[in-house]
């Protein structure tokens, strides 16, 4: 059976597409799937850095499209996680180096080799985005609880629907304490505007910065809330759609409250 192609997109930059692509790829591979993660951000590649595979790049996606190498030559295998492959972007070309039909051709090849192909879409709605969604079966829209990110995600969702793709939503970088104080949009607010199915909520996690800087997969880090959330999203994405979505709670304040209650009694 052919594998599926999932595009991770957001419209706005810096909301966590690349980190989520890398982590979801790793999580799916750990669940026993054969996974290819494709960096679509030609000219501004950084998925390879996040995955810690930068020093092993020989060929890239433009080389594949131009026929300068085979897919197997360009796909870099992750040595820490079995069945996880990266197809890096070219740093010297620009987004016009490939066309949507090239991507359809490439993903049809990848479908035969991999159970899941994740496309890490660049920010914006220009050529890179068009290339990415041309070949996708499914889409994950990443949005942070900010008005600007919601606005861009809304636009992206409209464009995805225009391509007959029904997207799913990840709300990233939730700070429960701020949501509780009313300083941040809650995920309910985001879902109310975007009106698409939620596939996961990811809490703000400082470990993500460490992980991306060192190139170690987030989900291999123990006790990372974001990593755990991403593992659950990977399960929902592949075969367990009914896994309940956990609402990140302000656990600290919960204990504080409990503590204050006890202290009052004393």
């Amino acid at each position, binding site marked *: 059976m052919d594998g599926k192609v999932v595009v991770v997109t957001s419209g706005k930059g810096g909301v966590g597409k690349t980190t989520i692509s890398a982590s979801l790829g790793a999580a799916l591979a750990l669940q026993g799937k054969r996974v290819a993660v494709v960096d679509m951000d030609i000219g501004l590649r950084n998925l390879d850095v996040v995955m810690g595979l930068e020093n092993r790049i020989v060929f890239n996606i433009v080389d594949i499209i131009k026929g300068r190498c085979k897919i197997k030559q360009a796909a870099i295998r992750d040595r820490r996680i079995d069945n996880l492959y990266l197809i890096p972007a070219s740093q010297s070309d620009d987004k016009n180096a490939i066309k949507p039909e090239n991507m359809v051709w490439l993903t049809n090849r990848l479908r035969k080799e991999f159970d899941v192909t994740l496309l890490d879409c660049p920010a914006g709605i220009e050529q890179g985005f068009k290339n990415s969604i041309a070949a996708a079966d499914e889409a994950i829209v990443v949005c942070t609880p900010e008005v600007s990110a919601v606005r861009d995600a809304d636009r992206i969702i409209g464009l995805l629907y225009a391509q007959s793709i029904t997207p799913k939503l990840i709300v990233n970088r939730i700070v429960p304490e701020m949501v509780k104080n009313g300083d941040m949009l809650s995920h309910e607010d985001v879902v109310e*505007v975007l009106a698409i199915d939620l596939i996961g909520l990811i809490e703000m996690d400082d470990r993500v910065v460490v992980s991306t800087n060192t190139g170690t997969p987030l989900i291999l880090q123990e006790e990372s809330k974001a990593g755990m959330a991403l593992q659950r999203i990977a399960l929902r994405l592949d075969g367990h759609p009914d896994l309940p979505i956990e609402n990140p709670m302000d656990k600290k304040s919960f204990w504080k409250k409990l503590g204050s209650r006890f202290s009052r009694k004393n």
Partner: protein
Amino acid sequence: MNHNDDPPVKIKGVGDSLWVAVNPNLPVEQLKKELIKPFERLKHLAINARIIIDTGKDDQENNDRLIEELGNYLKAEFQVGHVSKPTPPKRSVNKNRIRQQDMGNAWHHYRNDGLLIAGRVRSGQKIQAKKHLIILGDLNPGAEVIAGGDIIILGCLQGKASAGQPDNENAIIMALEFKPTQIQIGGFVAAGMADSSADRPEFASVEENAIIVDDYIKGNPFRRLAWPEVR
């Protein structure tokens, strides 16, 4: 009307009578002379005919005398039958009443140019309607709708809505949840709406050269209309 330019005598058949219009400004003798010519031509048709003499004036006394004299003359000369003056036309319709149309049959007379759409209008999408626009759904921030007439949103309005484009200032914008980023009615623009957190339907209209937003339930502008009318 200047009667001096009119021919002194005109005759036409009205129903079962002969309508004789005479110019009352001329002397009676001249009118008698003028009457001879057409009545001689009528010959026996004039005998026993009903005659209505119209002087075109409301001046009662002089009129009646003129009509009587001319009537007697005609009776004597041409053996006409009954001579009378014109009866004033009946006013069956009261001019002061507002014209009321029966909307029960409106479908036969009016075709609707409105655009009715269902669904969510997302950021970056732009919907234009020639006349009225009705959206069964929400208008997200960043989305834009433009209509020649009214805009009615049965949902949450958060984007930009322009009604009555280009110059219809009677248009309204109504939404169940009214939180627009900007609205326009005709040439008027209103932006940065004060945070109207009222969870009630509201509408915007132009009043005294400014856009006013009011509670739709309380300030329904159409409630005062005496009779349903086409918008």
